[in-house]
Protein backbone atom coordinates (compact mmCIF):
# COMPACT_ATOMS: atom_id res chain seq x y z
CA UNK A 1 0.00 0.00 0.00
CA UNK A 2 1.29 3.43 -0.84
CA UNK A 3 2.21 5.26 2.28
CA UNK A 4 0.41 8.54 2.66
CA UNK A 5 2.87 11.34 2.07
CA UNK A 6 2.87 14.51 4.10
CA UNK A 7 -0.37 16.38 3.88
CA UNK A 8 -3.93 15.78 4.89
CA UNK A 9 -4.81 12.23 5.84
CA UNK A 10 -6.82 10.17 3.41
CA UNK A 11 -9.87 10.23 5.66
CA UNK A 12 -9.79 14.00 5.83
CA UNK A 13 -9.51 14.26 2.04
CA UNK A 14 -12.33 11.82 1.50
CA UNK A 15 -14.62 13.79 3.79
CA UNK A 16 -13.72 17.03 2.00
CA UNK A 17 -14.36 15.40 -1.38
CA UNK A 18 -17.73 14.22 -0.12
CA UNK A 19 -18.56 17.84 0.61
CA UNK A 20 -17.83 18.58 -3.04
CA UNK A 21 -14.25 19.82 -2.73
CA UNK A 22 -12.77 18.56 -5.95
CA UNK A 23 -9.28 19.73 -5.02
CA UNK A 24 -9.31 17.23 -2.16
CA UNK A 25 -10.13 14.44 -4.56
CA UNK A 26 -7.34 15.65 -6.85
CA UNK A 27 -4.88 15.18 -3.99
CA UNK A 28 -6.13 11.61 -3.59
CA UNK A 29 -5.68 11.03 -7.31
CA UNK A 30 -2.14 12.35 -7.16
CA UNK A 31 -1.42 10.19 -4.13
CA UNK A 32 -2.62 6.91 -5.61
CA UNK A 33 -2.49 7.22 -9.39
CA UNK A 34 0.96 5.64 -9.71
CA UNK A 35 0.12 2.65 -7.58
CA UNK A 36 -3.24 2.24 -9.29
CA UNK A 37 -1.60 2.41 -12.70
CA UNK A 38 1.07 -0.08 -11.67
CA UNK A 39 -1.50 -2.56 -10.36
CA UNK A 40 -3.62 -2.24 -13.48
CA UNK A 41 -0.58 -2.51 -15.72
CA UNK A 42 0.65 -5.67 -14.00
CA UNK A 43 -2.79 -7.21 -14.29
CA UNK A 44 -3.47 -6.13 -17.85
CA UNK A 45 0.00 -5.92 -19.40
CA UNK A 46 -1.12 -3.00 -21.49
CA UNK A 47 -0.34 0.59 -20.75
CA UNK A 48 -3.36 1.94 -22.62
CA UNK A 49 -5.76 -0.51 -21.00
CA UNK A 50 -4.27 0.27 -17.60
CA UNK A 51 -4.79 4.00 -18.16
CA UNK A 52 -8.42 3.42 -19.10
CA UNK A 53 -9.02 1.22 -16.10
CA UNK A 54 -7.38 3.69 -13.72
CA UNK A 55 -9.54 6.54 -15.00
CA UNK A 56 -12.66 4.40 -14.65
CA UNK A 57 -11.57 3.37 -11.18
CA UNK A 58 -11.17 6.95 -9.97
CA UNK A 59 -14.53 7.92 -11.48
CA UNK A 60 -16.18 4.98 -9.80
CA UNK A 61 -14.46 5.83 -6.53
CA UNK A 62 -15.70 9.42 -6.71
CA UNK A 63 -19.22 8.20 -7.41
CA UNK A 64 -19.16 5.84 -4.47
CA UNK A 65 -17.30 7.93 -1.91
CA UNK A 66 -20.42 8.00 0.25
CA UNK A 67 -20.33 4.20 0.49
CA UNK A 68 -16.78 4.12 1.84
CA UNK A 69 -17.30 3.20 5.47
CA UNK A 70 -13.68 3.79 6.47
CA UNK A 71 -12.45 6.93 4.71
CA UNK A 72 -8.96 6.36 6.06
CA UNK A 73 -8.71 3.19 3.98
CA UNK A 74 -9.27 4.92 0.66
CA UNK A 75 -6.09 3.47 -0.83
CA UNK A 76 -6.97 -0.16 -0.21
CA UNK A 77 -10.51 0.47 -1.35
CA UNK A 78 -9.29 2.08 -4.57
CA UNK A 79 -6.90 -0.80 -5.25
CA UNK A 80 -9.79 -3.18 -4.86
CA UNK A 81 -11.73 -1.21 -7.47
CA UNK A 82 -8.71 -1.16 -9.76
CA UNK A 83 -8.19 -4.89 -9.33
CA UNK A 84 -11.82 -5.74 -9.97
CA UNK A 85 -12.05 -3.47 -12.99
CA UNK A 86 -8.83 -4.91 -14.36
CA UNK A 87 -10.18 -8.40 -13.94
CA UNK A 88 -13.42 -7.49 -15.73
CA UNK A 89 -11.51 -5.68 -18.43
CA UNK A 90 -9.26 -8.64 -18.95
CA UNK A 91 -12.17 -11.04 -19.23
CA UNK A 92 -13.93 -8.79 -21.73
CA UNK A 93 -10.74 -8.45 -23.70
CA UNK A 94 -10.22 -12.21 -23.77
CA UNK A 95 -13.80 -12.68 -24.96
CA UNK A 96 -13.33 -10.15 -27.74
CA UNK A 97 -10.20 -11.94 -28.84
CA UNK A 98 -11.90 -15.29 -28.73
CA UNK A 99 -14.74 -13.85 -30.77
CA UNK A 100 -12.28 -12.80 -33.38
CA UNK A 101 -11.01 -16.41 -33.45
CA UNK A 102 -7.55 -15.23 -32.66
CA UNK A 103 -5.94 -18.44 -31.50
CA UNK A 104 -8.08 -19.32 -28.50
CA UNK A 105 -6.20 -21.60 -26.16
CA UNK A 106 -6.83 -23.91 -23.28
CA UNK A 107 -5.61 -21.33 -20.80
CA UNK A 108 -7.68 -18.18 -20.94
CA UNK A 109 -5.16 -16.21 -18.95
CA UNK A 110 -3.35 -15.48 -22.18
CA UNK A 111 -6.34 -14.73 -24.35
CA UNK A 112 -4.24 -16.00 -27.22
CA UNK A 113 -1.76 -13.20 -27.06
CA UNK A 114 1.95 -13.37 -26.40
CA UNK A 115 1.70 -16.96 -25.34
CA UNK A 116 5.19 -18.24 -24.68
CA UNK A 117 6.46 -21.11 -26.69
CA UNK A 118 5.65 -24.17 -24.57
CA UNK A 119 8.61 -26.07 -25.97
CA UNK A 120 11.08 -23.40 -25.03
CA UNK A 121 13.27 -24.96 -22.36
CA UNK A 122 13.81 -21.80 -20.41
CA UNK A 123 11.99 -18.48 -20.83
CA UNK A 124 14.97 -16.62 -19.55
CA UNK A 125 17.52 -18.54 -21.50
CA UNK A 126 18.70 -15.65 -23.59
CA UNK A 127 17.88 -12.86 -21.24
CA UNK A 128 20.30 -10.12 -20.52
CA UNK A 129 20.06 -8.34 -17.21
CA UNK A 130 18.05 -5.57 -18.81
CA UNK A 131 15.59 -7.99 -20.30
CA UNK A 132 15.02 -9.92 -17.12
CA UNK A 133 12.23 -7.69 -15.90
CA UNK A 134 10.48 -7.83 -19.23
CA UNK A 135 10.66 -11.62 -19.24
CA UNK A 136 9.48 -11.74 -15.67
CA UNK A 137 6.53 -9.52 -16.55
CA UNK A 138 5.64 -11.85 -19.38
CA UNK A 139 5.95 -14.88 -17.15
CA UNK A 140 3.61 -13.21 -14.66
CA UNK A 141 1.22 -12.53 -17.50
CA UNK A 142 1.23 -16.25 -18.28
CA UNK A 143 0.15 -17.27 -14.78
CA UNK A 144 -3.42 -18.38 -14.11
CA UNK A 145 -5.61 -15.48 -13.24
CA UNK A 146 -5.90 -15.92 -9.48
CA UNK A 147 -2.21 -16.66 -9.09
CA UNK A 148 -1.30 -13.62 -11.16
CA UNK A 149 -3.56 -11.29 -9.21
CA UNK A 150 -2.48 -12.64 -5.85
CA UNK A 151 1.19 -12.38 -6.80
CA UNK A 152 0.88 -8.87 -8.22
CA UNK A 153 -1.02 -7.57 -5.24
CA UNK A 154 1.08 -9.31 -2.59
CA UNK A 155 4.61 -9.71 -3.90
CA UNK A 156 4.75 -6.62 -6.07
CA UNK A 157 2.31 -4.13 -4.58
CA UNK A 158 2.77 -5.38 -1.01
CA UNK A 159 -0.89 -5.28 -0.09
CA UNK A 160 -1.87 -7.18 3.06
CA UNK A 161 -3.12 -10.69 2.38
CA UNK A 162 -6.38 -9.96 4.17
CA UNK A 163 -7.14 -7.11 1.78
CA UNK A 164 -6.19 -9.26 -1.19
CA UNK A 165 -8.51 -11.98 0.05
CA UNK A 166 -11.31 -9.42 0.20
CA UNK A 167 -10.51 -8.20 -3.28
CA UNK A 168 -10.37 -11.62 -4.82
CA UNK A 169 -13.28 -12.99 -2.84
CA UNK A 170 -11.36 -15.85 -1.30
CA UNK A 171 -9.80 -16.80 2.02
CA UNK A 172 -6.45 -15.59 3.26
CA UNK A 173 -5.18 -19.16 3.07
CA UNK A 174 -6.20 -19.32 -0.57
CA UNK A 175 -4.27 -16.12 -1.21
CA UNK A 176 -1.19 -17.66 0.38
CA UNK A 177 -1.56 -20.72 -1.78
CA UNK A 178 -2.01 -18.70 -4.96
CA UNK A 179 1.04 -16.59 -4.16
CA UNK A 180 3.08 -19.65 -3.36
CA UNK A 181 2.01 -21.49 -6.52
CA UNK A 182 2.93 -18.45 -8.60
CA UNK A 183 6.28 -18.06 -6.89
CA UNK A 184 7.06 -21.72 -7.34
CA UNK A 185 6.37 -21.56 -11.06
CA UNK A 186 8.43 -18.42 -11.52
CA UNK A 187 11.25 -19.81 -9.42
CA UNK A 188 11.39 -22.89 -11.64
CA UNK A 189 11.36 -20.78 -14.78
CA UNK A 190 14.03 -18.35 -13.63
CA UNK A 191 16.14 -20.50 -11.33
CA UNK A 192 19.18 -20.29 -13.58
CA UNK A 193 19.11 -16.51 -13.47
CA UNK A 194 18.37 -15.86 -9.85
Amino acid at each position, binding site marked *: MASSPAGPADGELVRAARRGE*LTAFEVLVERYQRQATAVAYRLLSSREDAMDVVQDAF*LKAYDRLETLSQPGRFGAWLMRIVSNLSLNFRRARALRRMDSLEAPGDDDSWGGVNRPDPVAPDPAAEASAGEMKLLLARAIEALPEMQRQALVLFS*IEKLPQKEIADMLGCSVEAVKWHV*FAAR*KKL*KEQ*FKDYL
Partner: protein
Amino acid sequence: MTQPDTHDVEYLLCRHLDGQLDRRERRALEQRLEADPGLREQLRLYGALDGLLAGLSTEAIDGIDYDLQRAEIITAVERKVLLSTERRRRLVFRPRFLLTAAAAMLLMAVAVGVVVLWPGVGGAPTPIATMDISRVAPTPRPAGQISGTVHPEDLDDLPLDIAPSRAAAPAGTIVVSFGAPHEADGAPDEAVVVY
Protein backbone atom coordinates in the same frame (compact mmCIF):
# COMPACT_ATOMS: atom_id res chain seq x y z
CA MET B 1 -7.31 -24.96 -8.71
CA THR B 2 -4.54 -27.29 -7.74
CA GLN B 3 -3.79 -26.36 -4.17
CA PRO B 4 -0.20 -26.54 -3.05
CA ASP B 5 0.57 -28.87 -0.24
CA THR B 6 0.81 -26.70 2.86
CA HIS B 7 3.33 -29.17 4.28
CA ASP B 8 5.47 -28.65 1.20
CA VAL B 9 8.80 -27.44 2.51
CA GLU B 10 8.92 -24.79 -0.21
CA TYR B 11 5.62 -23.45 1.06
CA LEU B 12 7.28 -23.16 4.45
CA LEU B 13 10.22 -21.36 2.85
CA CYS B 14 7.87 -18.77 1.34
CA ARG B 15 6.03 -18.30 4.60
CA HIS B 16 9.41 -17.92 6.27
CA LEU B 17 10.34 -15.18 3.81
CA ASP B 18 6.99 -13.49 4.46
CA GLY B 19 7.61 -13.63 8.21
CA GLN B 20 4.54 -15.77 8.78
CA LEU B 21 6.02 -18.72 10.66
CA ASP B 22 5.54 -18.95 14.36
CA ARG B 23 8.52 -19.54 16.63
CA ARG B 24 8.19 -23.32 16.68
CA GLU B 25 7.84 -23.59 12.90
CA ARG B 26 10.73 -21.22 12.34
CA ARG B 27 13.02 -23.16 14.64
CA ALA B 28 12.12 -26.42 12.95
CA LEU B 29 12.74 -24.93 9.51
CA GLU B 30 16.06 -23.43 10.57
CA GLN B 31 17.19 -26.83 11.75
CA ARG B 32 16.27 -28.33 8.38
CA LEU B 33 18.06 -25.49 6.59
CA GLU B 34 21.20 -26.11 8.58
CA ALA B 35 21.17 -29.76 7.64
CA ASP B 36 20.16 -29.37 3.99
CA PRO B 37 22.24 -27.22 1.60
CA GLY B 38 19.68 -27.89 -1.17
CA LEU B 39 16.99 -26.34 0.95
CA ARG B 40 19.20 -23.34 1.61
CA GLU B 41 19.61 -22.93 -2.13
CA GLN B 42 15.85 -23.04 -2.57
CA LEU B 43 15.47 -20.35 0.08
CA ARG B 44 18.03 -18.22 -1.75
CA LEU B 45 16.18 -18.64 -5.04
CA TYR B 46 12.86 -17.60 -3.51
CA GLY B 47 14.51 -14.63 -1.84
CA ALA B 48 16.09 -13.53 -5.11
CA LEU B 49 12.77 -13.92 -6.91
CA ASP B 50 11.02 -11.81 -4.28
CA GLY B 51 13.64 -9.10 -4.76
CA LEU B 52 13.06 -9.16 -8.51
CA LEU B 53 9.29 -8.97 -8.05
CA ALA B 54 9.55 -6.11 -5.59
CA GLY B 55 11.64 -4.26 -8.15
CA LEU B 56 8.73 -4.33 -10.57
CA SER B 57 6.70 -2.20 -8.20
CA THR B 58 9.03 0.75 -8.37
CA GLU B 59 9.81 0.27 -12.01
CA ALA B 60 8.54 3.22 -13.99
CA ILE B 61 6.03 2.36 -16.61
CA ASP B 62 7.36 3.86 -19.78
CA GLY B 63 5.54 6.67 -21.45
CA ILE B 64 3.04 7.60 -18.78
CA ASP B 65 2.59 11.30 -18.14
CA TYR B 66 1.07 11.25 -14.66
CA ASP B 67 0.28 14.97 -14.70
CA LEU B 68 -1.71 14.50 -17.88
CA GLN B 69 -3.38 11.39 -16.49
CA ARG B 70 -4.42 13.29 -13.36
CA ALA B 71 -5.74 16.21 -15.38
CA GLU B 72 -7.80 13.82 -17.49
CA ILE B 73 -9.21 12.10 -14.43
CA ILE B 74 -10.19 15.38 -12.78
CA THR B 75 -11.71 16.66 -16.01
CA ALA B 76 -13.76 13.49 -16.27
CA VAL B 77 -14.89 13.85 -12.67
CA GLU B 78 -15.81 17.51 -13.23
CA ARG B 79 -17.76 16.59 -16.33
CA LYS B 80 -19.59 13.93 -14.41
CA VAL B 81 -20.43 16.35 -11.59
CA LEU B 82 -21.66 18.95 -14.07
CA LEU B 83 -23.76 16.42 -15.94
CA SER B 84 -25.39 15.13 -12.79
CA THR B 85 -26.13 18.71 -11.65
CA GLU B 86 -27.58 19.58 -15.05
CA ARG B 87 -29.63 16.39 -15.02
CA ARG B 88 -31.08 17.29 -11.64
CA ARG B 89 -31.80 20.83 -12.78
CA ARG B 90 -33.53 19.59 -15.91
CA LEU B 91 -35.60 17.22 -13.87
CA VAL B 92 -36.74 19.95 -11.50
CA PHE B 93 -37.53 22.49 -14.20
CA ARG B 94 -39.02 20.08 -16.68
CA PRO B 95 -42.54 21.38 -17.74
CA ARG B 96 -44.08 18.03 -16.99
CA PHE B 97 -42.53 18.06 -13.54
CA LEU B 98 -43.83 21.59 -12.91
CA LEU B 99 -47.36 20.63 -14.01
CA THR B 100 -47.25 17.58 -11.82
CA ALA B 101 -46.04 19.62 -8.88
CA ALA B 102 -48.78 22.24 -9.42
CA ALA B 103 -51.46 19.56 -9.64
CA ALA B 104 -50.18 17.93 -6.50
CA MET B 105 -50.22 21.21 -4.62
CA LEU B 106 -53.78 21.92 -5.82
CA LEU B 107 -54.93 18.50 -4.72
CA MET B 108 -53.30 19.00 -1.37
CA ALA B 109 -55.00 22.39 -0.92
CA VAL B 110 -58.39 20.88 -1.77
CA ALA B 111 -57.82 18.05 0.66
CA VAL B 112 -56.87 20.45 3.44
CA GLY B 113 -59.95 22.60 2.67
CA VAL B 114 -62.25 19.60 2.85
CA VAL B 115 -60.82 18.47 6.12
CA VAL B 116 -61.04 21.91 7.69
CA LEU B 117 -64.36 23.15 6.32
CA TRP B 118 -66.53 20.10 5.74
CA PRO B 119 -68.99 19.77 8.67
CA GLY B 120 -68.35 16.67 10.62
CA VAL B 121 -65.33 15.75 8.57
CA GLY B 122 -62.71 17.84 10.13
CA GLY B 123 -64.19 17.86 13.60
CA ALA B 124 -65.50 21.43 13.35
CA PRO B 125 -66.22 22.84 16.79
CA THR B 126 -69.82 22.45 17.97
CA PRO B 127 -71.33 25.67 19.30
CA ILE B 128 -71.74 25.54 23.02
CA ALA B 129 -73.79 27.70 25.35
CA THR B 130 -71.93 30.52 26.94
CA MET B 131 -72.56 31.85 30.35
CA ASP B 132 -71.60 35.26 31.51
CA ILE B 133 -71.14 35.53 35.21
CA SER B 134 -70.34 38.86 36.69
CA ARG B 135 -70.14 40.19 40.13
CA VAL B 136 -71.70 43.60 40.43
CA ALA B 137 -72.65 45.93 43.18
CA PRO B 138 -76.33 45.81 44.13
CA THR B 139 -78.55 48.55 42.77
CA PRO B 140 -81.45 49.86 44.78
CA ARG B 141 -83.89 49.99 41.88
CA PRO B 142 -83.30 47.37 39.29
CA ALA B 143 -84.78 48.25 35.95
CA GLY B 144 -85.87 44.71 35.30
CA GLN B 145 -88.98 43.26 36.82
CA ILE B 146 -88.55 40.66 39.49
CA SER B 147 -90.99 37.91 38.87
CA GLY B 148 -90.17 35.93 41.95
CA THR B 149 -87.56 34.84 44.33
CA VAL B 150 -86.69 31.39 45.46
CA HIS B 151 -84.74 30.49 48.52
CA PRO B 152 -84.46 27.42 50.60
CA GLU B 153 -87.11 27.03 53.26
CA ASP B 154 -84.64 26.47 55.98
CA LEU B 155 -83.09 29.80 55.31
CA ASP B 156 -86.06 31.88 56.44
CA ASP B 157 -83.86 34.12 58.38
CA LEU B 158 -82.03 35.10 55.26
CA PRO B 159 -82.53 38.83 54.84
CA LEU B 160 -84.82 39.13 51.82
CA ASP B 161 -84.65 42.82 51.61
CA ILE B 162 -81.57 42.57 49.54
CA ALA B 163 -82.68 43.32 46.07
CA PRO B 164 -81.17 41.32 43.26
CA SER B 165 -78.65 43.30 41.42
CA ARG B 166 -78.75 44.27 37.83
CA ALA B 167 -75.98 45.32 35.55
CA ALA B 168 -77.39 46.52 32.29
CA ALA B 169 -79.58 43.49 31.95
CA PRO B 170 -82.34 44.19 29.41
CA ALA B 171 -85.97 43.94 30.43
CA GLY B 172 -87.22 40.39 30.41
CA THR B 173 -83.94 38.95 31.44
CA ILE B 174 -84.33 36.24 34.00
CA VAL B 175 -81.99 37.07 36.76
CA VAL B 176 -80.90 34.70 39.40
CA SER B 177 -79.34 36.54 42.22
CA PHE B 178 -77.86 35.55 45.42
CA GLY B 179 -75.94 37.53 47.86
CA ALA B 180 -75.48 38.63 51.41
CA PRO B 181 -75.15 41.85 53.32
CA HIS B 182 -71.97 42.82 54.94
CA GLU B 183 -73.45 44.01 58.16
CA ALA B 184 -70.67 42.89 60.35
CA ASP B 185 -67.78 44.64 58.67
CA GLY B 186 -69.78 47.49 57.21
CA ALA B 187 -68.80 46.76 53.63
CA PRO B 188 -71.38 47.45 50.89
CA ASP B 189 -73.77 44.67 50.20
CA GLU B 190 -72.94 42.49 47.26
CA ALA B 191 -74.79 40.06 45.13
CA VAL B 192 -73.83 37.65 42.42
CA VAL B 193 -75.99 37.88 39.36
CA VAL B 194 -76.26 35.20 36.76
CA TYR B 195 -77.89 36.20 33.46
